[in-house]
C-alpha cells in the first residue's frame, strides 16, 4: 500500500449539519470550562476564606470589566454545555434519534443557550 | 515477453456475484486454495439489483407445493428448449439451497407462522398448470438480491475465502492441449498484470445487458466471461435468447420487479384498460415475461401507449395501499420516486420492456463443466473450464426465464460447480502448464490496446454498438433488419480493432477497463446477432415477424454459435429427466 496517498479532509469543503456544529461547540465549551475552573476555584476559595475575601470577590465582579467578561464567558459556556448535555441525555434514552428531531433539538439547543448567554450577561452586569 | 508474476490457486472464480460467491463458499469450506477475482468489490455485483425473489418449492405459502410443478413451469416458461435434466436438478435441489441461505442469515420476509414469505410471480402454476396461480417466490421485501449477495459475501468472509477485489480478468490461458489453465488478470488498483494459474477456472461473470442501449443491467454487465470464452474459441449456446423485462422504468431503464404484479399490481394502456386480460386471459399480468413484453409492445404499436409519444404503458400500484407498498415493495417506491418522479402510492409508474437477462451463454452440464462439440457434433467437456450463473447456459431457462429463477440458478449451480470441482481436485487434476507463447496469446488483446496510437474513442463505439443491438435485435425481430445489424456489427468490429486507448496510466485506469469491456460487448453482440438471424422461428423471447410460429420440427434445439467460423450449429435439448416423466412440448398459452 502506498502511504503517500492524499486524503481529502479539507474541512472547509465539507458541509456540517447543525448537530455536528453543536457537538463541536460542546467540546470547545467543555475545554473552556476546564480552564475556567481556575477562576471558579479561586473565587470559591477566596469568598469562603474570610469576610474580606468575600468582599474582594464581590468587588472584582462588580467593578473589574475583565472579571465581568470572564464571568460572562464562563457562564455562557456553562449554559451551552449544560443545554447540549441535556440534549445528549435525551438521545441516550432514545428521544429524538431521527434526523428531523436531531436537527430540531440542535436548533433548540442553540436558541435556548443563546437566551442563557443573554441572561448571564444581564446577571453579570 | 511473458515475464509475468503468477498467482497459483486450486480454483479461480472469476466474478463475485451470486453464483461466483456460492461456488467459492463451497470450495472455501473444503479448504481448497480458492480465490474470487472480481472487477468490483463483490457486493457491487449485479446480483445486488435483483428484487422480487428466489423461486423455489419450499412449500411455505402452499404446504402441498411440489418441485415438479415448479419444474413444469420452468420447462414451459422456457418454451421447451429448457434442458429437462437441468431443470429437474435445479427445482429438486432448490429447497436445500434456499434453506442453506436462510441458515446463513438471509433476512427473508416471513409469514405469520414464521416461515419464509412467498409471493406469486409470472408463469407460476400448481398441479402442472391445472391448479391456478402459485405463489412460489421467496422474498426479502423487494431487495432479495441484495440480501442474498450480502449474505453470501458475509459467509465467504466467515470461511476465509481469498478475494482479489477490483481485479479484471482479461483473457483465458489455454495450454497446448487446449485445456484452460487460468487467466490473465489486471489489478485495477495498480495496473499490474499477472498470470493466475488454476486447475479449475470458473466463469461466473454474469450477463451482458449493456450490449443494448436500454437495459435494466448494471454498467458492469459487459459479458466479460462470454467474451473471454469466445476469444478462446469456445461455442456459445442460445445467444439469441434475450429477455426483455416488461417493467423497466421508462427513460431510465431501471428495473421494477415482477413482484409488483405478484402483489396485485397490473399494467394499463392510455385508456386505463388492463390490457393483459386480452392477451393472457388466465394468468393476465403474470404470464411469462416474453408474453407480457410482446403484449406491451403490441399495445404501443397499435396506438394505445401512454405519454406524449405514446411509447410506454403504465404499471398501476396505487390500489395496493401505502402499507403493502411500504412493507413488500419499499425499494420500488424509492426507485420510482427517484427515476420516474412518480409516487406509486398515488400515480402509476411509466414502464417499457427493457433488456434484462441473457438466457444463453457458455453451455455447461449440471456440474458447471463447460461443453463444446467435437467434429462429429458430440458434446465434449472443456478441461479446466467451468461456468455458472447468467454467464452459463445449463440450460434451465431455455428460450425465456421465469421470474425468480435466476437467483435459484445462481445458488444451485454455483454450489453444484463448487462441489464438483472439490471432488475433481480430490481425485487430482493435472494439466500441462501454459507455455510462454500460450501466455503471449492471451496477452495479445491487452497489448493491442496498450500500444494503440490513435483511432476512435471507446464511448462512441460502445454507443454505436448499443444502438445497433437496440434497433435490430429488440423484442420483435425481422430478417432484413437483422441482416443489416449483422453487417453493421461486422464493420464495427473492424473499427473497434483499431480503436484508441488514450490513457495508458496504471493506477485505477478505468478507461483501460472500459476498452477491454468493449471487446467483450462486441463478442456478445455478434454472437447474439448471428444466432438470432439463424433461428428462423419464434420461440420464447425470440420473436420474429417473418417467422411468427414455433418450429419444433427444425428448432426444438439449442443454437450453438462457433466463433471461429461465425457459424451457428445446433445442439440437442435434453428431454430425459432422471426421476420424472418428460414434459412433452405443447402449445404455450397463459
Amino acid at each position: 500500500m502506498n502511504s503517500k496517498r492524499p486524503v481529502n479532509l479539507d474541512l472547509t469543503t465539507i458541509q456540517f449539519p447543525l448537530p455536528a456544529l453543536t457537538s463541536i461547540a460542546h467540546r470547545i465549551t467543555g475545554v473552556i470550562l476546564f480552564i475556567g475552573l481556575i477562576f471558579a476555584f479561586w473565587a470559591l476559595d477566596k469568598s469562603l476564606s474570610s469576610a474580606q475575601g468575600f468582599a474582594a470577590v464581590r468587588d472584582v465582579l462588580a467593578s473589574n470589566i475583565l472579571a465581568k467578561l470572564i464571568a460572562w464567558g464562563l457562564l455562557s459556556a456553562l449554559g451551552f454545555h449544560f443545554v447540549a448535555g441535556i440534549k445528549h441525555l435525551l438521545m441516550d434514552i432514545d428521544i429524538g434519534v431521527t434526523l428531523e428531531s436531531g436537527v430540531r433539538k440542535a436548533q433548540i439547543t442553540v436558541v435556548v443557550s443563546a437566551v442563557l448567554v443573554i441572561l448571564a450577561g444581564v446577571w453579570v452586569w | 515477453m511473458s515475464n509475468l508474476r503468477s498467482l497459483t490457486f486450486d480454483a479461480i472464480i472469476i466474478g463475485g456475484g451470486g453464483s461466483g460467491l456460492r461456488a467459492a463458499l463451497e470450495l472455501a469450506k473444503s479448504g481448497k486454495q480458492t480465490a474470487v477475482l472480481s472487477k468490483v468489490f463483490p457486493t457491487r455485483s449485479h446480483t445486488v439489483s435483483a428484487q422480487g425473489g428466489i423461486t423455489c418449492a419450499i412449500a411455505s405459502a402452499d404446504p402441498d407445493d411440489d418441485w415438479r410443478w415448479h419444474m413444469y413451469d420452468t420447462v414451459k416458461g422456457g418454451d421447451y428448449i429448457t434442458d429437462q435434466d437441468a431443470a429437474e436438478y435445479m427445482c429438486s435441489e432448490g429447497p436445500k439451497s434456499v434453506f442453506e441461505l436462510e441458515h446463513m442469515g438471509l433476512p427473508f420476509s416471513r409469514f405469520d407462522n414464521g416461515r419464509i414469505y412467498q409471493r406469486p410471480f409470472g408463469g407460476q402454476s400448481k398441479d402442472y398448470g391445472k391448479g391456478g396461480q402459485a405463489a412460489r417466490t421467496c422474498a426479502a421485501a423487494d431487495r432479495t438480491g441484495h440480501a442474498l449477495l450480502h449474505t453470501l459475501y458475509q459467509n465467504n468472509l466467515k470461511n476465509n475465502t481469498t478475494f482479489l477485489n477490483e481485479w479484471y480478468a482479461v483473457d483465458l490461458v489455454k495450454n497446448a492441449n487446449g485445456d484452460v489453465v487460468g487467466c490473465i488478470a489486471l489489478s485495477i488498483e495498480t495496473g499490474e498484470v499477472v498470470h493466475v494459474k488454476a486447475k479449475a477456472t470458473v466463469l461466473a461473470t454474469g450477463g451482458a445487458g449493456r450490449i443494448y442501449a436500454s437495459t435494466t443491467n448494471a454498467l458492469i454487465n459487459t459479458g466479460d466471461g462470454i467474451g473471454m470464452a469466445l476469444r478462446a474459441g469456445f461455442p456459445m449456446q442460445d445467444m439469441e435468447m434475450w429477455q426483455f423485462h416488461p417493467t423497466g422504468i421508462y427513460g431510465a431503464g431501471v428495473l421494477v420487479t415482477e413482484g409488483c404484479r405478484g402483489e396485485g399490481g397490473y399494467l394499463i394502456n392510455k385508456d386505463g384498460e388492463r390490457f393483459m386480460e386480452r392477451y393472457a386471459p388466465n394468468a393476465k399480468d403474470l404470464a411469462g415475461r416474453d408474453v407480457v413484453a410482446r403484449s406491451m409492445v403490441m399495445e404501443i404499436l397499435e396506438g394505445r401507449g401512454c405519454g406524449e409519444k405514446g411509447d410506454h404503458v403504465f404499471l398501476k400500484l396505487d390500489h395496493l395501499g401505502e402499507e403493502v407498498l411500504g412493507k413488500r415493495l419499499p425499494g420500488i417506491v424509492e426507485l420510482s420516486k427517484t427515476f420516474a418522479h412518480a409516487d406509486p402510492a398515488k400515480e402509476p409508474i411509466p414502464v417499457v420492456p427493457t433488456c434484462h437477462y441473457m438466457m444463453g451463454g457458455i453451455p455447461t452440464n449440471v456440474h458447471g463443466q463447460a461443453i463444446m462439440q467435437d467434429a462429429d457434433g458430440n458434446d465434449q467437456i472443456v478441461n479446466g473450464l467451468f461456468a455458472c450463473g447468467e454467464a452459463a447456459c445449463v440450460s434451465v431457462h431455455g428460450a425465456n426465464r421465469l421470474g425468480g429463477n435466476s437467483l435459484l440458478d445462481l445458488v444451485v449451480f454455483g454450489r453444484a460447480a463448487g462441489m464438483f470441482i472439490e471432488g475433481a481436485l480430490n481425485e487430482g487434476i493435472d494439466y500441462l502448464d501454459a507455455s510462454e507463447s500460450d501466455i503471449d496469446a492471451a496477452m495479445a488483446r491487452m497489448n493491442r490496446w496498450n500500444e494503440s496510437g490513435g483511432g476512435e474513442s471507446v464511448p462512441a463505439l460502445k454507443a454505436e454498438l448499443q444502438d445497433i443491438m437496440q434497433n435490430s435485435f429488440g423484442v420483435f425481430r425481422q430478417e432484413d433488419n437483422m441482416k443489416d445489424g449483422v453487417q453493421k456489427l461486422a464493420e464495427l468490429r473492424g473499427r473497434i480493432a483499431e480503436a484508441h486507448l488514450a490513457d495508458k496510466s496504471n493506477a485505477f485506469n478505468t478507461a483501460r477497463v472500459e476498452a477491454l469491456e468493449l471487446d467483450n460487448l462486441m463478442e456478445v453482440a455478434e454472437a447474439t446477432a448471428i444466432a438470432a438471424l439463424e433461428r428462423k422461428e419464434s420461440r420464447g423471447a425470440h420473436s420474429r415477424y417473418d417467422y411468427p410460429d414455433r418450429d419444433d420440427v427444425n428448432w426444438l434445439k439449442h443454437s450453438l454459435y462457433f466463433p471461429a467460423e461465425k457459424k451457428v450449429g445446433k445442439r440437442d435439448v435434453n428431454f430425459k429427466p432422471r426421476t420424472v416423466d418428460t414434459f412433452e412440448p405443447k402449445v404455450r398459452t397463459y
Partner: protein
Amino acid sequence: MSTLQVSIYRYNPETDSAPYMQEFQVETHGRDLMVLNVLELIKEQDSSMAYRRSCREGVCGSDGMNMNGKNGLACVTALSDVVKNNKLVLRPLPGLPVIRDLVVDMGIFYKQYERIQPYLQNDEPAPAIERLQSPEDRDKLDGLYECILCACCSTACPSFWWNPEKFVGPAGLLQSYRFLADSRDTATRERLADLEDPFSVFRCRGIMNCVAVCPKGLNPTRAIGKIREMLLANAT
C-alpha cells in the same frame, strides 16, 4: 443557462505530487441529470477521469462521493438536489486515502465491517427447513440489513476520521446491530464483549452526520444507541 460548472478533485499518483481541482463545463441541455450522468459526460471529454460505478440505481454502493460538501451516491443524486449557483464540486469521500481522482481506498472501512463478524452465528444444529422467525422479529431487521456499504456515513463521521482504526464507524455498527437484533443469532454475548472498549462504539457522539447522508435513509445513530442499551443491560 444549461452549461454546468463542475469542479473535480484530481489526483493521479503517477503524474501528480499533490491533488488539485480541475474545472469542467458540461452541457446538460437543461435536463435534471444525475451526478453520475455528469461524470459520464466528463469522462467522454477526459477519459482519464476515474470514479467507481456499477448499478447506477443506488443499490450497489459504488459511487459514494462528496458532492458540494455532502456525501451521497452520484447515481441517485439529481442535479436539482445538489447544485447551487450552477456549480457542482465533486470530491472523494473524506478521510480515506485517495487512490486516484474520486476513487478512495476503502480498506479500513471494510476492515471495520469484518471486525464486527458480519455473519449470522448460530451454534445450534440447523433444522431440515428454515429457522422460523416471527414477522415481528423479522421487522427488527428492517432499517439495518439494507445497508449497501457505500461508506457515505462513515466518511461523514468525524469520529471515524480521527479514529478509523479503532472506532467501528456508523456502517460497521449498523451491521453489528443487524446481527445483535436477529432472533436467529446466538452470539450476542460475544458480540457485545467485543464492543465494550472506549472506542469501538462509544466514540459516537450522536451528531447524526451519518443519518444526514445515508442514501438508503438508514439510521446508524439509533442502532448505536440500541447497542449501548444492550451493553448496559448486559453489564447490570
